């Protein structure tokens, strides 16, 4: 029957428009900035038209840029770890709730903040953490503090903001993997006299390891590439990779170096995506 359709409709004609869009406006631009990243900055003509690895050498040797890269990776790693710790029990709870209505309500509550967009969510955290914000207002009213404490514009605030961005991704990814693990395994664990907590940690967690790896990869990538959270919640004193790419390309107009920074981020994302998808395909259930 597939042959019957193939005589009438050509799959090529159906995919070519979409393929053209992605090729012309994503793949070609990525190739272009890969080339730019190997060029050198020239204040007069923007680029010199040469081939060089100097931009990449600068990213990995210049103390300022190694520090930004290292700091971004640290913040990303910390946010990822917190997301897994907070997200796993929640994902497990959603996955094992018997009521279908409760499940879908919890999933909606999980993705709702995510879909509001980075600008609105950052604004919301600023209202909560600002010097005249909710937390300071509460602490002042109760009398715990005399002066507003500085929460906004600190690395801690960035981690809090990032965790709220990444957590929905972690929960949804983990929940779909835990869903595929038969509940009978937990009954087996419990029949051995394990507590519910021990069943989750010793029985379900090892089997869901591919899901944990996938969730960690997604969270880490998103945190490395974050823009709105570091800029709005971190403020000018927090330097991270995403804002640096924007600054180098749009403000300083150092296209070669900005392109190299972008490709460093792209490479991190590519490697982690490949690793996690290969690992995820090896899951047991």
């Amino acid at each position, binding site marked *: 029957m597939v042959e019957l359709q193939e005589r009438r409709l050509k*799959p090529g004609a159906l995919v070519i*428009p979409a393929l053209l869009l992605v090729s012309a406006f994503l793949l070609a631009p990525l190739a272009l*900035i890969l080339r730019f990243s190997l060029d050198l900055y020239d204040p007069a003509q923007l680029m010199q038209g040469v081939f060089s690895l100097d931009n990449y050498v600068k990213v990995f040797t210049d103390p300022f840029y190694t520090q930004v890269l290292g700091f971004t990776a640290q913040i990303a790693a910390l946010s990822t770890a917190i997301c897994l710790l907070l997200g796993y029990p929640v994902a497990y*709870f959603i996955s094992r709730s018997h009521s279908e209505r409760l499940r879908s309500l919890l999933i909606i509550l999980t993705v709702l903040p995510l879909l509001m967009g980075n600008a609105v969510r950052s*604004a919301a955290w600023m209202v909560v953490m600002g010097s005249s914000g909710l937390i300071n207002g509460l602490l002042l009213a109760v009398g715990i503090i005399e002066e507003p404490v500085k929460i906004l514009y600190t690395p801690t605030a960035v981690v809090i903001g990032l965790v709220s961005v990444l957590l929905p991704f972690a929960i949804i990814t983990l929940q779909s993997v835990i869903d595929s693990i038969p509940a009978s395994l937990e009954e087996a664990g419990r029949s051995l006299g394990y507590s519910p907590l021990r069943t989750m940690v010793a029985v379900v967690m090892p089997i869901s390891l591919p899901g944990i790896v996938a969730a960690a990869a997604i969270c880490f990538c998103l945190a490395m590439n974050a823009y709105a959270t570091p800029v709005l919640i971190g403020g000018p004193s927090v330097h991270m990779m995403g804002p640096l790419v924007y600054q180098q390309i749009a403000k300083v107009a150092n296209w070669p170096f900005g392109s190299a920074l972008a490709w460093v981020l792209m490479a991190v*994302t590519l490697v982690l995506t490949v690793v996690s998808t290969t690992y995820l395909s090896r899951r047991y259930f």
Partner: protein
Amino acid sequence: MPTSAGRVLFLVFVAAVFLFLVAPLVVIVWASFFADKILTFPPSGYTLAWYARAWQLPDFASGFLMSVQVAICATLGSLLLGVPAALAVERFRFPGREPLRQILLAPMYVPAIVAGAAVYLYFVQVEIATEVQLTATFPGVMIAHTMVGLPWTMRLVCASLATTGSIAEEAAQSLGANALQTFFYVTLPIIRPGVIAAALFSFIASFTELEMSLFLVGPGKTTLPIAIVNYLEWNLDSTIAAVATVQILIIGAVLLASDRFVNLGKAF
């Protein structure tokens, strides 16, 4: 599970995580009604004046209109390109089908800040070569947002096609329907929920897109999220809370509409 201290602790933990996720949004909606000129918790009174003030600021009003227009055009674009593409990769077997599917999903995996930088520099090169301006224009932002919506359309329509099977289509064709008749009278009605969900998610993806737009907007051609970010660089008051509340209401309404058509947990 037995009711015990451990179980209660577990429930409290889960509830606290959900509070962490949702509370900031509730707080910003609340703050949009505060009467005080400077944001103060708790407020001295309540007012609706900030909504009027937000609408009087040209950046927000024009940003809102631009965002709505871009999102509608980008949604149509991603459906026009994405639905046929999904049909091809789900219903046909041809060499390179899986790599092709991955390429069409790529806009979802390439970091938005990297894609934004790349598309911006590419547009500048196009301008130099052809003198057609794409940066800081409506079509430029729309092309980028169409690409943002495409993977959503692919995913949701592919999922819809995969679960329905092609028996009805084969029956229609064996009865003499041509390709277009089969698509419009048989396939489209079957996958309608998937297409509607794709439209709604493409709309949300475009309406909230920030990182790519950042590179592509220009004076007078700004989207709402960019206007919000620009304002937040210097101000934090109830005006921004009112703007954010409007966006929350719009996205909330779209989500409410989509809940009938798609299992939200499966959309990711």
